[in-house]
């Protein structure tokens, strides 16, 4: 007994996927990937493990503390197990696909491994799926990836999706322009603490305060933002935000959109308009994305990643599946015919005294009798 319990124990944050959840996750993933493909995003499949310096380059820098390392006995170099797939896609776009015409649209899906789970997401291994749109720096590109994320998530049953758009470069720019201490400003803004922001004082304090106050539903946020006198580089970002929101309102009219001009936490390496995907009543975020640039030539890029574990928590549970039991007396070819019709057909491997009881025991909902499918009564 203790031997068996010990063998079933897994390390923290790792789990066995069983039926029906494992199949459900694959089905949801497949649906997402179909949407990504329908917008022209070609699937690529990077390896699980790469050299550490490539994995943690550029947008990957932030994943350093989350990455498992191992030594490659062959090359004697340090390798990392991917904790995020985006840096791999960025690497592929900047190297192997550098000559491919832009815009380059790439999609991916796969498992990632992290050193530590968080309290909110204790899983250390989970699946990601996402898209990257490389080589175009325009509101049209920003809007396309948000639209795609929203359309795909809704199709897998996430009804009350909500997209929060942020401009993570705004606050650092203001800090630099006015010579403010970034740590102090971020501490106040990350808490959304209006009093602490007000206490910063001066022109910069008033500006940050106005930006903080502008957060909320997209329509009112844009109205408030429009009234704020913004210095030149910031006004450009605002124009972009307006363009993206206008496009999204046309493309996905009933999508709940919010704007948070001062959101910054977790977007440290983003270089422009970014966003977080939420669903009402669901803990944590479903995914996130935003603008970054590729290592090397610095191609502009944007994209998003969604987390399958959160999506499955937010999506409706799988519909109960019907399975038909084929007793040993079933004529040859019947099973093949039913499976062609789309049935899940489970063959009896040996003679059973009571076929109906045997069918229930192996988890079937129906039974084949005299060439007809009959539902089993409990």
């Amino acid at each position, binding site marked *: 007994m203790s031997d068996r319990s010990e063998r079933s124990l897994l390390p923290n944050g790792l789990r066995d996927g069983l039926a029906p959840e494992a199949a459900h996750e694959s089905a949801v993933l497949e649906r997402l990937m179909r949407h990504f493909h329908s917008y022209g995003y070609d699937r690529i499949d990077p390896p699980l493990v790469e050299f550490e310096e490539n994995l943690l380059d550029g947008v990957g820098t932030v994943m350093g503390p989350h990455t498992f390392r191992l030594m490659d006995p062959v090359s004697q170099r340090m390798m990392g197990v991917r904790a995020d797939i985006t840096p791999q896609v960025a690497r592929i776009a900047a190297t192997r696909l550098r000559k491919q015409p832009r815009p380059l649209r790439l999609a991916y899906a796969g498992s990632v491994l992290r050193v530590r789970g*968080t*309290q*909110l997401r204790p899983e250390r291994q989970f699946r990601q799926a996402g898209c990257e749109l490389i080589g175009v720096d325009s509101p049209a590109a920003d809007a396309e990836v948000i639209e795609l994320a929203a359309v795909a998530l809704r199709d897998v049953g996430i009804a*009350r999706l*909500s997209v*929060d758009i942020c401009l993570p470069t705004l606050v650092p720019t203001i800090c630099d322009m006015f010579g403010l201490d970034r740590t102090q400003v971020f501490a106040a803004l*990350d*808490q*959304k*603490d*209006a*009093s*602490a922001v007000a206490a910063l004082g001066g022109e910069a304090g008033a500006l940050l305060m106005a930006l903080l106050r502008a*957060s*909320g*539903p997209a329509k009112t946020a844009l109205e408030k933002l429009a009234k704020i006198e913004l210095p030149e580089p910031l006004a450009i970002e605002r124009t972009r935000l307006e363009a993206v929101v206008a496009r999204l309102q046309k493309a996905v009219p009933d999508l*709940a959109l*919010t704007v*948070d001009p001062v959101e910054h*936490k*977790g977007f440290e390496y983003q270089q422009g308009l970014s966003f*977080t995907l*939420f*669903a*009402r*009543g*669901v*803990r*944590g*975020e479903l995914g996130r994305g935003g603008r970054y640039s590729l290592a090397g030539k610095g191609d502009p890029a944007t994209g998003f990643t969604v987390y399958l574990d959160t999506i499955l928590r937010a999506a409706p549970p799988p519909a109960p599946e019907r399975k038909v039991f084929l007793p040993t007396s079933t004529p040859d070819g019947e099973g093949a015919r039913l499976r062609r019709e789309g049935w899940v057909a489970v063959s009896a491997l040996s003679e059973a005294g009571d076929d109906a009881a045997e069918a229930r025991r192996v988890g079937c909902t129906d039974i084949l009798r005299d060439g007809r499918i009959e539902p089993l009564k409990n």
Partner: protein
Amino acid sequence: MATSSTEPSSQSAPGAAGQSNEPIVLAVPKGRILKELRPLLSKAGIEPEPAFDDPSARQLTFGTNIPHFSIIRVRSFDVATFVAFGAAHLGVAGNDVLMEFDYSELYAPVDLNIGHCRLSVAEPEEMIGSDDPSRWSHIRIATKYPGVTRKHFSARGVQAECIKLNGAMELAPGMGLCRRIVDLVSTGKTLKDNGLVEIEKIADVTSRLIVNRAALKTRPTEMTPWIDRFREVANAA
């Protein structure tokens, strides 16, 4: 849960605007802070059902005069957990708790200006004078805040080995568990009674209104008025 039979507040509460009939849950800590918080709730237009003010009531969830707005009463550390996981949407927690957990899913938009105290290091009176903190490489500390303690000392290059206690920290030095403690200090009387002296302040502590990140993002028109209301009330106090 019955709606409160107490007189409705003269002010109309933000939730009463009737934006949504989805529940809003406010998590509040039991004990000392609750006493200071109670008048703020009234000023914010929240009148809990009578059982809320009965310390002997075993009830944990309380209805209020505002439809779909309920209050839960839990331990102060658990307020942050309930709100971080989205089980409660709003909460009241000291920044000591927020520092200890550092949840990314929480915002703390309003300093309620109640529950004033400080998080400090204390040691037995007789150690003062003979102790030179600059020579420490490793110390052992009894505390309810192992996270904050470790971080505080590691910033000075000192490794802190924490003994996690859930209360009566002041007993630890006298009973030979360890020599130093990190705990909340308000008047300093408990320390003094146990022969301890406060040697260093880690942080000033007050209670904050906290809000779940996903709730603020997905229900901004319901959450923002509550944040504004608590800010007004806290500033007016």
